């Protein structure tokens, strides 16, 4: 029995999505830019995908730029907005200490090219300080980028409040909603953002498909130039099957948003409470609320996440520490460090992220395995040996 509790890293594509993608790959293989019937068939699949993605987030179809990944969408939003405004004198960007690498590294790259970057802190529960954003805003601020939900903690950020501040200052507002789009109800108008990033493989769609909501009227410089696909914002022949898969996944996700979040929250809370009670000195990282329903991040006393991940995998339970992109290095999570966690607590943090396949039975199995493996590791660490 293998139990997957790493849905913030990726999710399995739904069978309907795989079927549609297979069909599109085989039958709608035309170039969507071509005039002839082959092209038109591909273009129709593309249009449908775009409408479905737009419907998921309350956007107009024309406001959705399809692209290859969440990372690409973040790059287009940040580089595109920065470069489009550079000649107006707005050369200041605001971001936070807990963003995904796709945003962090992009901001750092722009910083090396002369843009002024302000990184606002978070409190010890992993929530961005609205006051810090207010203080950071200046007349030359071009863009504020704050993630919607943190990928490691699940904490939801006060996007609507920050977006209102940004609007008042004449700056654009971007949010990386990769962890929320398709998982919790989300409306770009209610959030008041100008730019929003989503990624298909986080909501049971394929890898290789993402999107950037770009509010009508927002100017973006393209990061990829070429044949002017996606209204010139993202050149390159469209991977129609990927986009079609994303569109269907978005539509299927919409239908789950009434019940699934509450189901996952109940399971997540049970997992969290069970482990907090069963294993002494276990700590939850990040606020209990507000956060997405599927995520909990825990540190177990005296246990390094590296050993725990391996031990759990050998028991058939898949979890992760920090962001999967940073595995291979053993830097403590920048998110936990930004919250002021100790080095040891940060190195011991493990993320459990639930999803569609998580049942009560699967959760029971996982709780038993975590309890067993953590107890064994704590026994060895305290010199108990075998």
């Amino acid at each position: 029995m293998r139990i997957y509790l790493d849905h913030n890293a990726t999710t399995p594509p739904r069978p309907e999505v795989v079927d549609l993608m297979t069909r599109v790959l085989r039958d709608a293989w035309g170039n969507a830019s071509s005039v002839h019937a082959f092209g038109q068939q591909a273009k129709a699949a593309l249009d449908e995908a775009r409408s479905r993605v737009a419907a998921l987030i309350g956007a107009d179809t024309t406001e959705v730029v399809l692209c290859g990944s969440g990372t690409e969408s973040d790059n287009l939003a940040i580089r595109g907005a920065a470069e489009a405004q550079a000649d107006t004198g707005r050369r200041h960007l605001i971001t936070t200490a807990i963003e995904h690498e796709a945003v962090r590294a992009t901001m750092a790259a722009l910083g090396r090219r002369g843009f002024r970057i302000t990184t606002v802190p978070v409190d010890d529960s992993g929530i961005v300080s609205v006051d810090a954003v207010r203080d950071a805003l200046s007349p030359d601020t071009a863009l504020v980028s704050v993630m919607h939900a943190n990928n490691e903690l699940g904490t939801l950020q006060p996007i609507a409040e920050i977006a209102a501040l940004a609007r008042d200052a004449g700056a654009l507002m971007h949010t990386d909603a990769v962890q929320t789009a398709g998982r919790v109800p989300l409306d770009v108008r209610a959030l008041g953002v100008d730019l929003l990033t989503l990624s298909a493989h986080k909501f049971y769609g394929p890898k290789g498909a993402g999107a950037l909501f770009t509010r009508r009227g927002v100017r973006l410089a393209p990061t990829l130039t070429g044949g002017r696909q996606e209204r010139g914002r993202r050149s390159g022949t469209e991977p129609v099957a990927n986009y079609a898969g994303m569109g269907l996944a978005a539509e299927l996700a919409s239908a789950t948003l009434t019940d699934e979040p509450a189901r996952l929250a109940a399971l997540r809370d049970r997992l969290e409470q069970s482990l907090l009670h069963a294993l002494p000195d276990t700590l939850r990282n990040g606020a209990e609320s507000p956060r997405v329903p599927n995520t909990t991040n825990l540190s177990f006393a005296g246990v390094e996440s590296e050993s725990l991940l391996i031990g759990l995998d050998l028991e058939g339970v898949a979890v992760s520490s920090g962001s999967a992109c940073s595995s291979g290095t053993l830097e403590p999570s920048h998110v936990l460090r930004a919250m002021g966690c100790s080095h040891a607590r940060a190195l011991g943090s493990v993320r459990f992220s639930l999803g569609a396949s998580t049942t009560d039975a699967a959760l029971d199995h996982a709780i038993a395995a975590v309890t067993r493996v953590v107890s064994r590791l704590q026994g060895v660490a305290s010199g108990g040996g075998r």
Partner: protein
Amino acid sequence: MRIVVAMSGGVDSSVAAALLAEQGHDVVGLSMQLYPQGDGADAQKYGACCTLDDLHDARRVAARIGFPHYIINFESRFSDTVIRNFIDEYVAGRTPIPCAHCNSDVKFAELLERSRGLGASALATGHYARIRTDAEGRFHLHRGSDHAKDQSYFLFSLGQAQLAEALFPIGELDKATVRDHARRLGLQVAEKPDSQEICFVPDGDYAAFVEREAPSRMRPGAIVSRTGRVMGMHEGVHRFTVGQRKGLKLSASEPLYVLKIDAAAATVTVGPREALAETHLTATGVQWVSGTGPDAWRPAAAQIRHRHAAAEGRVRVSDEGTAEFEFAAPQSAVTPGQAVVFYDGDEVLGGGWIQ
């Protein structure tokens, strides 16, 4: 039985793991990432084994045979123990032996603890050495069957507690047989060359490594004769090893060898080859496989570096953690910092660090 196998990506540990899996054990491969594996300049510094490519080789072996494999990060542990000791020893005018320290301070220390944490009953490695159990249940460490490849010299620090959990699955095999097994099992590493150098100094230029890592600790000084006559100057004692002849840059009528290094005075003493001969040595940090060493002289053979045929003589404990050895015939270049390992035939009695 769950067995963790330490996999470097070489043919020896790959075959060790594959043979255990073939015997039906629940094998878990662990590869230690020992130094930074970035794309930048750092990545160029290191890499004779345990590079990212080697770790990927280990992963491919695991996938081929069908057991789980993980890369674990030991960068700080390795840096704090093995690399720090390597630098400290050269700066102190001694000649370190990092592979022995890696076995005692990393593999059969933290890695063994990690293995226990994963529920493993044993930690296996690809060393050429053998473990024997006697009638009383005590463990004995012997040279590998393939004497040309024997690595027991690097494992002298293993005591009863470590040997109880250690496994050397290829200790009874010779290298050719190990490669035959690798071919039979279709392992991609079957023809991979043996690693020769110290893994974190792939170009073999130890002096340059020490200079790069500890530039503020260089000790320039004089090269003197046995009578104290200054014969030349040097840029740091870390550039010298007892027994060294090359690179002294001295003009003399007879070949000169490094006899002694005094780091405190930054003095390197040189002399003729015959002056290198020693009949006695003292070792510190001595560990005995059985747990206790001989208080009275007992006959034994002493191996004083990796490529040295153990020389006959006698050994005794001189103090807690200290031993002395008297050679039956004088030995050349008894080098401080190297390990001395005491043998009775093929059996390791114990060993320590030459003073």
